[in-house]
């Protein structure tokens, strides 16, 4: 089984509540670490303009490129739900490794931060909250109710199979576990 996200981009106002909720819940002080990020996209010429946002974390890909790229096998994928896990005791750190995982990921999901030889961090899908039958903190934070979350096959049944929005290309190689409702 593979857990994933549905993101209703038509609702997203780019308010960053999900990003801050993530930083607070996971106590991430280093603002260069973006376990979840907002990607704004402005298109067109005045006055025919378009603006959309994508809220993105690790997509917990079906065939993760980061896992393959890691020279010390610090990255694994849980059998029961497909969540990506990084073992920070094994990860070499950004100064001793060339951050192959970050380079391999089509979505820049692996995060290292600014401190010396910091280890890779990844969206955990709030595994601690899942254990208490709660949604990931970003999902419950969204003032626009733009997220849904669960087994990706069920999400596809419920919302369809739109895999791309402008600014996000579905990697056929890694198969990210996210589907969308586009704004445009």
């Amino acid at each position, binding site marked *: 089984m593979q857990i994933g996200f549905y993101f209703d981009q*038509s*609702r*997203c*106002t*780019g*308010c*960053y*509540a999900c*990003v*801050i*909720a993530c*930083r*607070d*819940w996971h*106590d991430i*002080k280093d*603002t260069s670490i973006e376990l979840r990020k*907002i990607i704004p996209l*402005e298109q*067109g*010429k*005045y*006055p025919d*303009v*378009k*603006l*959309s946002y994508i809220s993105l974390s690790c997509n917990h890909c079906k065939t993760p490129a980061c896992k393959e790229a890691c020279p010390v096998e610090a990255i694994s994928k849980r059998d029961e739900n497909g969540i990506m896990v990084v073992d920070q005791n094994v990860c070499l750190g950004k100064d001793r490794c060339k951050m192959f995982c970050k380079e391999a990921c089509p979505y820049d999901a692996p995060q290292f931060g600014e401190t010396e030889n910091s280890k890779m961090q990844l969206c955990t899908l709030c595994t601690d909250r899942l254990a208490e039958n709660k949604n990931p*903190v970003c999902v*419950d*934070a*969204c*003032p*626009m*109710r733009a997220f849904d979350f669960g087994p990706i096959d069920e999400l596809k049944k419920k919302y369809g199979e739109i895999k791309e929005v402008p600014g996000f290309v579905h990697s056929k190689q890694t198969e990210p576990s996210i589907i969308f409702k586009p*704004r445009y």
Partner: protein
Amino acid sequence: MSKNLEKTIISSCPHDCGGRCVLKVHVKNNTITKIETDDGEGTQLRACARGRAYRQRVYSPDRLKYPMKRTGERGEGKFKRISWDEALEKVSSELIRIKETYAPEAILNISYSGNTGTFLHNQLSLFRLLTMFGGFTPIWGSASFWGSLFSSETTFGTVTAGHTGDDIPNAKYIIMWGWNPAETVQKTNTAHYLSQAKEKGIKIVSIDPRFTDSAAAFANQWIPIRPGTDTAMIIAMAYVMIIENLHDKKFLEKYTTGFDKFEAYVLGTDDKQPKTPAWAETITGVKAETIEKIARQYAGNKPSKILTLGAPGRTAFGEQFHRSLSTLSAMTGNIGVSGGEPAAFGLPAVGLQPSAGTGLIARQMTGNLPEGARQRPALHITKLWDAILKGKEGGYPADIKMAYITNGNPVNQFMNSNKAVEALKKLETIVVHEQFMTPTAKYADILLPVNTQFERNDIIRPWQGGPYCIYMNKIIDSLYESKSDLEICTGLAKKLGLSGYNELTEDEWLRDFWEAAKDMTDSKPLPDYDTFKKEGVFKIKTDKPVIAFEKEIKDPENNPFPTASGKIEIYSEKLKERNTPDLPPIPMYIEPWEGKNDPLTKKYPLQLVSTHSKRRIHSNMDNMPWLNSLEPHVIWINSTDAEARGIVNGDNALVFNDRGKISIKVKVTERIIPGVVSLGQGAWYSPDKKGIDRGGCANVLLKDEHSPAGAFCSNTCLVEIEKGED
């Protein structure tokens, strides 16, 4: 329960956004560990990024920790720690000295809206103290929505003139007029209801100089308009309705006064200038045919809503915007019906009304005080600096010698920051209560540290109304040596020998307020105080949206509007009698100063709008890394204006006029009308040695002037911009 176990406690955010959301705070060992939001029953009151980041504010290394006295020059930010006793002794002796040497009104109380909607902890602590002490010069006005307040009172006789947000999806057509709730929040869940309307297929139009987040998320159509000219478009829409016979004459006859006079103005009967769409096009920049279409769509898709709050009214003659907008809603009979909207001040008649908030507190906190003590002439918030500099000789009611500042950052948030600094340097004494070393705090002689809402108990209501209120439970002990404003003023009252200032505990005050509030709402039953405190959130169950003026429309005989005429006053006899220049009895378009026809455009050709940033609440939280890392503070400029100046995206630029100069990075964008630049207000004023503000504070550029009715004209300003140094 063991103290070491993590538990969750309900609180909220007290700042001035108009929303009120639930913060579910995790605490362990007297330390806040995490913040979640509403996960309860009913429509959840989910917090924005600012509320979610609050832990970083509470534990910021920059929190003011101890009472301090100034050691360097004013503005230098050099201070020395002193004891609370020394601080209170110094403040009380200065209060006495100023009062005895000059007069009570030499003390200017600049206490504003840093905490808003709170029952106990707000600007009224100092208000009560100084009133008991013998009076002071108060301030009046609002930097937010004075034009709207004034217009609602004038036109409808009340500010309780809005629907609840859940009525938004009941409209058939919606105009968001200079209104961007996706960033300003305005009321919790407003954006959520707009997305429901969009998903229902309701047509939504955004009229705004900027293509905002709200326009992008909800609108089918964006109509860019020049700032300060909205009233001309509204009046031209009225023209179209009159000419094409689209207006509801029966409604106008039955429920309004003076439509004939407005009609004569619109048609140009007296001034020979029919207010046609072509006339409006030259003023607004909106094509005549677009104005015609919007007029037809708004009139032809009843019920239809025009939603706005303050921005287009924060202009030179801002009250005319609100007065004409409400006239448009009356012309289409969109008042008193679900899906319509009076396009007035948006308080819905549900929950605890203002009388139960500020008014109740004012009564309780200032009750049994001599009436005369409260009757001193007030200074408008845009005129504080001028009044300090010029005093009675300049026609102001007092010679100010001392400023006492709580719950605000006026150097930053009131117009003309450079003049503010000049004025504050002239004073004999400045006392500030603060949580951080803000641009205003740097000018204090005595600086007193205030705690946050998580360090005290309070009750809060959404100040723009809503079917709920929140108990803000105390979560941790006050950090360092910080105290609440009430505790500080209680200490001062003792030093001043004032008995009876505060004989109640925090809990007794709140219990008392809650009991009194029960009589001030139709929303019953309210839970008892202890249940409310324990549960934290009280949501009033409503089976349908709350509609303004429903009974006035259904049964006008028995329910007149609370105006002098008992009707919606398109023509106001009160304004006629007031006889103030540029405050006509009917809504009119009046050419603004610093608009596109001002000769000053030769020197300063760009109009500046100062907007709200999604990563701070006015100037609150500009110093939180979690938030200020989200987006850079930039000035928006259209690509054609940038190109003409040789500016590219990301350049440093100087933005200036005769009032000041700021240095800021540029965002070149297609999301703004040419001829206009946009700057998020609230960034912290930080002048360098040459006097250039490196913080990018909008008020450095704004003219310290208000509209005839008292609106804060923060969207009436001319500037020029040039490429700066890298």
